[in-house]
């Protein structure tokens, strides 16, 4: 309700669309200019609300793709049967206005102050909050070593590939391609399983911080594999995405 904002309560506000960047054939990054942005933490998300002329409205959550202190970016994967993502990835133009609220979440965040090693496991567009964390690590000069294990269908489906391929020291990015690999591919193939995690994940006795993000079945499988490797069940932070995003 306009004019009755309560402290701590989130209100919808109008954001203006800035630059648009195509990441893959079905994924687009959208810059949002938000006049009253409170500042976000790496890993948080925001809600987008689209309202049709007849009053029907739909809300979706999108992870923030930029570091704290940077312009607000969200990265959206087009789901062919989606109500919101086709509009955001195909119709939206710079200068358009959309309703958002955020930042949201205090669980799936990494502030970079803990020097413990960090394991990030991404399925498809689940890599988005990790891009915020990696950018934050670099900007904040955080010392924690990071390993990102990223499962994608094929090399052209890898989001942020150019940026991920030139990470600074202390960050290792490992890809696994599940459906299609280039002829000269020497990396991992197939889904993330306990064997691959055993190879890539920090040993549990190093007390790593761990984050898993992707479609629900991916997250469930990875989280239970990590627990089988000795990661304490309550300490694997998980965020599940809806839709049928490819991993």
């Amino acid at each position, binding site marked *: 309700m306009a004019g009755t904002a309560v402290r701590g309560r989130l209100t919808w506000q109008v954001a203006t669309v800035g630059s648009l960047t195509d990441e893959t054939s079905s994924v687009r990054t959208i810059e949002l200019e938000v006049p009253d942005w409170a500042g976000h933490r790496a890993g948080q998300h925001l809600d987008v609300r689209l309202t049709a002329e007849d009053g029907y409205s739909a809300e979706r959550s999108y992870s923030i793709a930029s570091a704290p202190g940077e312009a607000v970016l969200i990265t959206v994967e087009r789901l062919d049967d989606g109500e919101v993502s086709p509009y955001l990835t195909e119709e939206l133009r710079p200068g358009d206005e959309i309703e958002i609220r955020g930042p949201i979440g*205090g669980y799936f965040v990494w502030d970079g102050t803990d020097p413990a090693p960090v394991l990030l496991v991404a399925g498809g567009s689940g890599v988005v909050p990790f891009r915020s964390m990696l950018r934050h690590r670099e900007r904040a000069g955080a010392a924690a070593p990071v390993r990102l294990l990223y499962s994608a269908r094929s090399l052209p489906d890898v989001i942020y590939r150019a940026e991920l391929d030139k990470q600074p020291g202390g960050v290792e990015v490992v890809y696994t391609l599940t459906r299609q690999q280039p002829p000269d591919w020497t990396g991992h193939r197939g889904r993330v399983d306990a064997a691959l995690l055993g190879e890539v994940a920090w040993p549990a006795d190093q007390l790593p911080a761990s984050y898993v993000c992707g479609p629900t*079945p991916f997250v469930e499988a990875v989280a239970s594999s990590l627990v089988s490797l000795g990661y304490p069940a309550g300490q694997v*932070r998980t965020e599940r995405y809806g839709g049928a995003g490819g991993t």
Partner: protein
Amino acid sequence: MDALDGNAIGGLLREIFGAEMTTASATCATCGSTGRVAETVVYLQAPGAVMRCRVCGAVLMVVVRRAETNCVDLSGLAALEPPLQPAVC
């Protein structure tokens, strides 16, 4: 649509409770287990949002929006406690 988790309704819960709630502890009134709201099972395809216990599957919370009002049923929760201090990672 798949089952999601409590992260997906972080915005809705802030709208209702006026605070960050994904790090709150939720105690199931059916089985007594306690977990973070972020780790509960959430369905959004129902008319409204339904939160279920990850251990026993019982309904913890239902939020249905009617006109401009959120109708909130918390009868499946024995306790819902926000963290005393902001979570630091």
